[in-house]
């Protein structure tokens, strides 16, 4: 087959709208007369649109991978139930840790560092299963009734990995709010974590403690955080500034916010995987937080 050679650059400038009016009409009349040119232009048009589609799909896939943080929670009910169970266990673990020696904290911190991305193993340690009075960001969890009407604010100094361990504030505020037992409903959903079924139902006490904060600098995952063993891990250059925590009660739930460098971030305490800090933009919320 005789292949007529077309200057793709010219076709391209036609397709990308870079031709002047005169050039364009000239080109179009040439197309009218030449079916081969016409089909070549059609082909090039398809090439450009296929490349565009490819890139769009690539960008979409990229966005899809992003963890949208707290907003996710209302979508995945199962995860919430799982989170509650996990928090209960983590809370138990922390309670245990806090009530024992400081040295142990140090050890755990080191282990956590190594474990890093691994999923935390729920620590049972023979302590009864409990439901923690923690902000659970879900409207659907009517089972857990959170009743705490005070707002409190406290700050925790970021720790340096090596020697400052001793400075961990080991003064957990143990609050015992009224907690209603979680019904089977949540127990059923707990299948996603390694928690024996039905454990959640035997709630007898509740713990609320301020998280220990752990900063890791120079990580590529800047401004990320996760909760591990009821400790808050912050990734990024937090500059040793005071990281402040604020709690805010808003209809039926308690949200924990991180205040850093004039910005407020919502912390999702069910976050066990590293996730980016989500900045608060709601001026209403910011106003309330600033009032604290």
């Amino acid at each position: 087959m005789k292949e007529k050679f077309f200057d793709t650059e010219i076709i391209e400038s036609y397709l990308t709208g870079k031709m002047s009016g005169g050039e364009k009409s000239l080109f179009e009349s040439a197309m009218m007369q030449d079916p081969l040119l016409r089909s070549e232009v059609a082909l090039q048009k398809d090439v450009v649109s296929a490349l565009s589609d490819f890139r769009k799909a690539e960008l979409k896939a990229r966005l899809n991978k992003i963890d949208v943080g707290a907003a996710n929670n209302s979508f995945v009910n199962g995860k919430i139930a799982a989170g509650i169970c996990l928090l209960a266990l983590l809370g138990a673990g922390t309670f245990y840790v806090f009530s024992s020696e400081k040295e142990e904290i140090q050890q755990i911190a080191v282990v956590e560092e190594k474990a890093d991305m691994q999923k935390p193993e729920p620590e049972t340690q023979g302590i009864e299963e409990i439901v923690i009075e923690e902000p659970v960001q879900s409207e659907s969890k009517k089972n857990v009734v959170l009743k705490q009407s005070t707002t409190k604010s406290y700050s925790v100094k970021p720790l340096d990995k090596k020697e400052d361990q001793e400075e961990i504030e080991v003064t957990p505020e143990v609050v015992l709010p009224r907690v209603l037992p979680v019904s089977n409903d949540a127990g059923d959903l707990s299948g996603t974590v390694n928690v024996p079924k039905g454990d959640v139902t035997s709630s007898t006490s509740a713990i609320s403690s301020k998280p220990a904060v752990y900063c890791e600098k120079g990580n590529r995952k800047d401004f990320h955080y996760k909760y591990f063993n009821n400790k808050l891990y912050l990734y990024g250059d937090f500059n040793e500034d005071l990281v402040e925590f604020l709690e805010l009660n808003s209809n039926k739930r308690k949200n924990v916010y991180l205040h850093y460098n004039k910005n407020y971030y919502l912390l999702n305490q069910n976050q066990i995987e590293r996730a980016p800090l989500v900045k608060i933009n709601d001026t209403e919320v910011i106003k309330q937080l600033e009032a604290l």
Partner: protein
Amino acid sequence: MKDREIIEKIEKGDESALDFLYQKNYKMMVRMIVRNSGTEEEAKDVFQEALIVLWQKITSKEFTLTSKLSTYIYSICKNLWRKELERKKRLTNEEAEGSEIQNIDQKERIEIVNKCISDLGETCRKILTYYYFDKLSMNDIAEKMGFANSDTAKTKKYKCKKELDNMIKSIYTASDFLD
């Protein structure tokens, strides 16, 4: 990140700024669409689409900021969602007949083109998508790809396009013979 910084990053084709916008605006946009009878899945899709529209506008430098970036994104989302609602309405009215009666020739051609694009080397594919979709300048492409200068980017782009064209034509003309 301030709006200006975000735009500057996107102008250079820095996707991290897109990630940032996604996280920052996710809740607000999804809420708006869900309130207007959309599902969360649809909302997510529309929001992503909106961000890509914005991305393309900024990377091709067709963009001047006249309001807050989030306001702008909000309005794109709203428009896209309105269009989508209209489309859905039309679909139910016309029993989803669809204008998909594209000519078979073109369908086949697009399939061939898609296959060739995926067969193309990653570097070429990147250069070509940055050029044709993002409409990045040769300078920006050179910077993003780590080339010495814009001339290198230009030459590479030319070669890659030629390679793609040749790949397509080797299949396309062959299938022509079968007719």
